[in-house]
């Protein structure tokens, strides 16, 4: 039998973990190194820059107007994540505690949304957005993100809610609370780990989305970071070092938020374990 606690197993698992970490971190390190090279060094074979050029970051920010894209990305991501979590919580509450005829069917139909890749719907979405006046609007893009984020959010929330003791909801009902209050005062405080999980998932997806933003935004004033950065690619020259710097700048907020939320997430899990 394979004993996971044996020293042999422990060291091979550690080795495996290190291997995976290297595979994951290497491209990031490579981008990091690239972002510090000069334009001429980019095509040289050395990994580290000969001449460290941190000025690339300042240049990328100024030359390409990253600030504007940044604001757009923050707006779109914040709005879409907040809306998705809000609507997802409401829907999951209904699917879990307010069973109605056909609710299982509606739920199943909703899950189909997870299986459809956004890229497959680009054209119909574009036509729809134009007709509804949502084209080239940041809130329009946010609504599309909400639509794509809802199925997975509802799935995660409902799964979590089903694990909560139903007596608490019934008890609150008998105590005179209305459904809205039950959700906010009783269910949501217990569902923090699920909310954090969904927030992280959605934030990563929406912040990094390229294809939908590319299709649904026209004016460069409305570009989000991934689309904005892609504009650096020129016909005759592509400043790879600046793109690398811009990409790293763009990933900082997600990285930081993830770090903060992840700690909360672990706290939430520990709390849940002690409740029993």
């Amino acid at each position, binding site marked *: 039998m394979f004993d996971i606690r044996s020293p042999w197993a422990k060291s091979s698992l550690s080795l495996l973990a290190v291997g995976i970490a290297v595979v994951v971190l290497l491209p990031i390190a490579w981008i990091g190194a690239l972002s510090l090279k000069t334009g001429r060094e980019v095509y040289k074979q050395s990994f580290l820059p000969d001449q460290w050029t941190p000025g690339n970051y300042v240049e990328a920010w100024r030359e390409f107007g990253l600030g504007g894209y940044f604001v757009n990305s923050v707006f779109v991501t914040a709005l879409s994540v907040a809306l998705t979590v809000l609507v997802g919580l409401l829907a999951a509450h209904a699917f879990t505690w307010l069973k109605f005829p056909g609710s299982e069917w509606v739920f199943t139909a909703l899950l189909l949304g997870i299986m459809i890749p956004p890229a497959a719907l680009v054209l119909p979405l574009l036509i729809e957005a134009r007709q509804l006046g949502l084209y080239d609007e940041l809130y329009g893009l946010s609504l599309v993100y909400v639509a794509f984020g809802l199925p997975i959010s509802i799935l995660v929330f409902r799964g979590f809610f089903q694990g909560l003791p139903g007596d608490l909801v019934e008890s609150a009902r008998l105590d*005179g609370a209305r459904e809205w209050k039950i959700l906010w005062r009783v269910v949501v405080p217990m569902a923090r780990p699920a909310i954090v999980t969904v927030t992280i998932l959605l934030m990563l997806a929406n912040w990094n989305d390229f294809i939908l933003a590319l299709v649904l935004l026209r004016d460069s004033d409305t570009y989000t970071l991934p689309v904005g950065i892609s504009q650096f690619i020129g016909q005759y020259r592509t400043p790879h070092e600046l793109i690398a710097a811009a990409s790293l700048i763009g990933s900082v907020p997600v990285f930081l938020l993830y770090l903060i939320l992840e700690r909360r997430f672990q706290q939430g899990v520990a709390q849940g374990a002690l409740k029993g």
Partner: protein
Amino acid sequence: MAEIDFRGVGKTYGDGTVAVRGVDLQVAEGEFVVLVGPSGCGKSTLLRMLAGLEAITEGEILIDGVVVNKTHPRDRDVAMVFQNYALYPHMTVFANMAFPLRQGKMPKADVAERVREVAGILQLTEHLKRRPANLSGGQRQRVAIGRAIVRNPKAFLLDEPLSNLDAKLRVRMRGEIAQLHADLGVTTIFVTHDQVEAMTLGQRVAVLSDGELRQVGSPHDLYNHPGDMFVAGFIGSPSMNLMRAELRNEEGWRLHLASGSVPVSGDVVRGVSGAVHGQEFVAGVRPESLVLGDPRLPEAEGLPRGVVRLIEVIEPEMYVYVDGFTLVDSGDPDAPSGEMLVARQPSGRSVSPGDVVAVGWDDKNLHLFSAEDGTAVTG
């Protein structure tokens, strides 16, 4: 305080399962009624229908004369204590107890005053700032009760509230609940599967089985005058001994069991309408009413006899299990069946496993049930 009236209440689930059928029960204002029965008998479903947590599929439930079938739980003004307490884990004891009051838009100062008052009654004052996770089982139970009484509901519904506590604490909380009812006088319906809890707490006890109400009465009535074999077997511990018997008239009436017969007085026979020679009954005798005697004595002549197999001493008594009889299944899944009678005797008696004993009883302790449908035919 309220009067509660179940009228032909039934519950059939979507898949056709019948959980409760045709329950008629009136609970008077301020009364303490216990619903008791084996697990799956529909007692919790009945309580949840009263609370509004389950839809009523047949009949109607009235609170203070008003049909509440379609009334939302929050508008029924009943408070419920759940088996697992259902305390809000992220709120302090104070917030838990204040929760029902805050839904009613009560001024803050009044909420605090009322919570403190109830916390005082339940000895929770020093725990108000703690969370449920940091309380003992008994304290959590008190918080759950406190949350129920804090808003002076029309009725308390308690769904197996003591089953998560250890034996000693259960006895203590049982006493506290009885005392609380005596002090507050609120109509209370208490659900349990434990017949000891039912008998000690209830002013009246309603026995359910298979979704049907079998008998409602005072604990004394249920014990001494069970309406059918199920109630006879369910109430009392150890259970009543139920044996197949035939009534014969050979130089006086006698009840014939497999291994002998016991005389029956003419009064008992006359009490059974239409009793005839050769009629079959189920004879029920409580363990404490069984008389075990030496089979060699002249007065033991003809009496059924059996072999002592097992003796359990529970000072100051002992339970003597006598083999050689055919017991009838009362319908209670937990009741004994098989071949052994149980007799409750003072622990000092000299009986040992392997002894052959003659078994008899006094007529006045005999319960006779119809062999066909199990209903009682004598008091």
